[in-house]
């Protein structure tokens, strides 16, 4: 009998390069959002943005098994999903800067960023707005006979929208290949999930749709990867949807205008101590997939990519002011 493999799921399942790439993308998400925050502070970006710093494991581990043909639907807090799915940070910055080279040609901004070519159907400014859209994407795959799955990201707050209920029910009755990934960061804006949601775990609601539901430590890369892996396998096998709840936390405020009146410094610090990137990196090093020098190189690469992305965005042209109605309809 072979010796039992006691490594965490992700480490025994994915090739070392794939794991290192995952770490790289997690660093990229972190540095990208810090960079965006910095640009915002310096007045280079207008509007608002919702940072996912602290939630990188949830985004990245949920995308480990997705190809460009697989789809995701994302949220207002979508930079992490976008990068995890394979987007280019230069074009993302360009979008934040409102440039024609941005993913949305400067029309969408942070809340609508999408990269349809890598299967990212877009962030969404409407809480819960992506849920039925994800089910529709899964319906397309099933009807067109494709093996693609759709991963639908949404927050704890979104789970109280009617759209959640309608979408999950339809996905279930039609056994569609979709994985609902709830990123429960404990708050919908300022409102605690424990106040707004009648059940302790959002995955408790999976039973109302006769689908499997599981709650995992969303800052544990491997735990998320494992839960989503099973859900994706189920989806690809035609067994229908699943609900995976990743318990996590955003370090920053809800948006740039958050005055943080609803949570304590202690709570924030407690969660910062559970940094999902540091944890994943430590795991990789502990299991010999990476050494410290390699980790440092990956981290440095992320810094460089972000810096280059900002430069690309700055150097890019703005949309022509006369083209305000361009892209409303097919050309």
């Amino acid at each position: 009998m072979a010796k039992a493999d006691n490594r965490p799921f992700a480490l025994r399942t994915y090739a070392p390069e794939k794991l290192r790439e995952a770490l790289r993308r997690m660093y990229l998400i972190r540095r990208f959002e810090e960079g965006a925050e910095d640009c915002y502070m310096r007045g280079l970006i207008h509007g608002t943005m919702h940072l996912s710093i602290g939630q990188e494991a949830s985004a990245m581990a949920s995308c480990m098994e997705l190809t460009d043909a697989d789809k995701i639907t994302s949220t207002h807090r979508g930079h992490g999903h976008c990068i995890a799915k394979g987007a280019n940070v230069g074009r993302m910055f360009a979008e934040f800067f409102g440039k024609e080279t941005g993913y949305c040609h400067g029309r969408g901004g942070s809340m609508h960023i999408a990269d349809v070519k890598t299967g990212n159907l877009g962030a969404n400014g409407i809480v819960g707005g992506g849920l039925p859209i994800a089910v529709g994407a899964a319906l397309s795959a099933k009807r067109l006979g494709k093996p693609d799955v759709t991963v639908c990201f949404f927050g704890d707050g979104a789970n109280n929208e009617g759209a959640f209920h309608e979408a999950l029910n339809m996905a279930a009755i039609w056994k569609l290949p979709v994985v609902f990934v709830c990123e429960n960061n404990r708050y919908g804006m300022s409102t605690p999930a424990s106040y707004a949601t009648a059940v302790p775990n959002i995955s408790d609601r999976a039973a109302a749709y006769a689908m499997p539901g599981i709650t995992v430590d969303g800052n544990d890369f491997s735990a998320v990867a494992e839960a989503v892996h099973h859900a994706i396998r189920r989806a690809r096998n035609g067994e229908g949807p699943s609900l995976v709840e990743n318990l996590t936390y955003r370090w920053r405020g809800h948006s740039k205008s958050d005055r943080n009146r609803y949570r304590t410094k202690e709570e924030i610090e407690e969660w910062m101590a559970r940094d999902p990137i540091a944890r994943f990196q430590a795991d990789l090093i502990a299991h010999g997939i990476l050494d410290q020098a390699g980790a440092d190189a990956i981290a440095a690469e992320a810094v460089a990519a972000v810096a280059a992305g900002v430069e690309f965005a700055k150097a890019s042209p703005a949309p022509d002011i006369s083209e305000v109605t361009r892209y409303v309809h097919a050309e």
Partner: protein
Amino acid sequence: MNAINPETALRTMSYAEAIREAMALAMEADPAVVLMGEDIGVYGGAFQVTLDLIERFGPDRVMDTPISELGGAGVAVGAALTGLKPIYEFQFSDFAMLAMEQIVNQAAKLRYMLGGEAAVPVVFRLPSGSGTGAAAQHSQSIEAWFGHVPGLKVLQPSTPEDAKGMLLAALADPDPVMIFEHKLLYKTRGHVPAGRYLTPIGKALVRRTGTDLTIVAGSIMVHRALEAAETLVAEGISAEVIDLRSIRPIDHATILASVRKTGRLMVVYEGVKAFGVGAEISALVAESDAFDYLDAPILRLGAADAPVPYNPDLERAAVPQVDTIAAGARRLFRREV
């Protein structure tokens, strides 16, 4: 549909049958076309428009949805974004209010928000209007709202021929299209050409030429306006009747040309008068050079400022009828508006 010889010049069928024929043609030609909606399967739809299609195309392409309009419309949007061409039937246009989010925030805006990198070729069908005794929540005419929404196309066929041609045109369009179908028209009959043809989106049609007065009307009001126009002949009033087949985009040119000719304009529609289709048409003329040709104020005939009442006499009184349209025209000549 089966026994009709496509060579026959005058194929007559009902408005509902014409829509069904368009759907069947499209589904035969393109496996990406799917129908979604409540009770559109064995029941055949609340107005029997999809009757028997589930037998022909199966439940995978004629999908009964749960009573979940927001979700159902959203699934259609997501499907359209990823390769299908869904036709989603709202059982009554009133229920589109549950799905405004997906129609307006998502379908209409996705192409733009994504900088042209995505398309949402979805068609929404919306049985609309009063006259069935179904009262306030099942009788509304809310098409004007969607005229206010960039990214949408909004149609309202008045004949079986157009009902078919517009649905086929909507399916050929790469962007979201809403088609308002008047419930009282479903059983009306008319000539419908065989095969596939497209009624151009955004074009109004002069249904009756006249010299003294332009009446712009849409959907069922076209028929009432035509009838009123006939009664006006005896009084020496020659009315031109324009079928406003498309609310978005609007065919300015046809309307303005007619007003320049007649010098008088009346707009007839079933929606509530205020902020309705009449306001937009009136304003288009009032801001154009046709303004200089006007010999009388612009008259709008829309619904009373009330929800649609249940009592049949009240219901009839609430919206323009042939006699009120004729009376409106007369007022324009006496200049008492």
